[in-house]
């Protein structure tokens, strides 16, 4: 191997070049699109077809390009220069400031509001106390008390989680149909949509209302709040 300024390696095409990517055997290369990416020739690639037994594994491997691959063309590349700014430092600088402010807030809370952090006595299966979850699970805790347990504890939470996961598709499928029925020219985003916007506000209200119900000692329809 000849010596030059950089490192010399034998590359896939059998030539000596500078840079990484060394293999020792010569393999012909196939240029694709941009010329940046190099794939194995078709004869060496795995045959992929609808009956490919590796499909389940490939779905798992779909993570790979997301983790390591090029992220490709950027939206901002299409905008005029004066409508964009660089990520660093222009877009980045507020975050250290935000970080300092949040650290200060949390530090202040830690110093001044010790009460919430106080522990009870060490756990003992014999001393039963009234169990309270963290405040953000209180709505569910209270919700468990209304109605049939199978529905409030499992069916509805499952619907909420699956509904959230699939929401983009639900919105798309139901939205286009509803818009046609209502003679709307299109189906707006929730912030501009009385139906989905209101539904979201109602859902948030439900969470907040049940959280309050779990805290305050009120009884509605015979179901108690904080006392039980």
């Amino acid at each position, binding site marked *: 191997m000849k010596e030059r300024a950089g490192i010399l390696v034998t590359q896939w095409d059998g030539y000596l070049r500078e840079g990484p990517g060394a293999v020792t055997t010569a393999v012909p290369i196939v240029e694709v699109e941009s010329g940046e990416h190099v794939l194995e020739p078709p004869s060496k690639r795995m045959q992929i077809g609808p009956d490919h037994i590796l499909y389940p594994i490939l779905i798992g491997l779909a993570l790979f390009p*997301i983790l390591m691959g090029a992220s490709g063309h950027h939206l901002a590349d299409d905008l005029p220069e004066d409508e964009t700014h660089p990520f660093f430092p222009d877009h980045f600088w507020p975050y250290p400031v935000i970080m300092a402010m949040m650290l200060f807030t949390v530090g202040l809370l830690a110093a001044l509001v010790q009460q919430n952090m106080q522990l009870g006595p060490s756990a003992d299966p014999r001393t039963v106390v009234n169990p309270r979850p963290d405040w953000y699970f209180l709505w569910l805790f209270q919700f468990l008390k209304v109605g049939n347990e199978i529905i409030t504890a499992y069916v509805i939470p499952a619907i909420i989680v699956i509904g959230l996961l699939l929401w983009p598709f639900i919105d798309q499928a139901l939205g286009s149909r509803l818009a046609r029925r209502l003679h709307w020219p299109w189906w707006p985003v929730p*912030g501009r949509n009385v139906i989905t916007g209101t539904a979201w506000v109602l859902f948030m209200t439900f969470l907040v209302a049940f959280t309050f119900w779990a805290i305050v000692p009120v009884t509605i329809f015979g179901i108690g709040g904080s006392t039980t």
Partner: protein
Amino acid sequence: MAILPHPRQIQMAVVDWLDQRFPFTQSVDEALYQRVPNFANAFYYCFGGMVFVLIVLQLVTGVLLAIYYVPDAAGNPAPAYTSVQTTIMKDVSLGWLIRGVHFWGANLLVVMIVVHMARVFWTGSYRAPRELNWMVGVVLLLVVLFFSLTGYLLPWDTKAYWATSVTLQVMRGAPVVGGLIASILQGSSTLGPQTLQRFFDIHVFILPALVLLFMYIHFRLIRRHGISEPL
């Protein structure tokens, strides 16, 4: 006579060396100087960044707490309880502050993640091509909630013990998989030291790995899609 090269020359040499082995400069350029649309300066686009900042704070304070925390629930008072109540809160200097930041940070994190999600929902940013990123987001939300659930038990006081006992009881009742999930989490026939060991393992090993992985995917996808336009 200068014996050592100028620091600048050393820096150039190091960067050159790296560049020959990996497109180092190019990667850094792409990461740092990617252009961002000006409309992304609206204040409500910073909520996701705030969630990220809080998660970093949780990781840092969590690592510090783990130096003194003892995941052992045998006996009364249990070493786990004493390590929080006495060692961290009283003996170690500034231990109370680190625990306070971790505690309040966790609460703020839940608030901010919901605020971030509400913003994404409101501006319809979950729509194509961002559906996958929304789903990654929902996974992150579940991971964060599971962080809280497992972290709550770690101080091993009565409050945490009975809250967790109710949680496991509810889980156990779930059709089909409930019993299996609850017994995996509980680790023994009663809620005891085994349970604490498992919650600790989930809280400090499994969930941090998951949250980092999914945040990385979240950010890669944001880089790909760019930020969505405001309302």
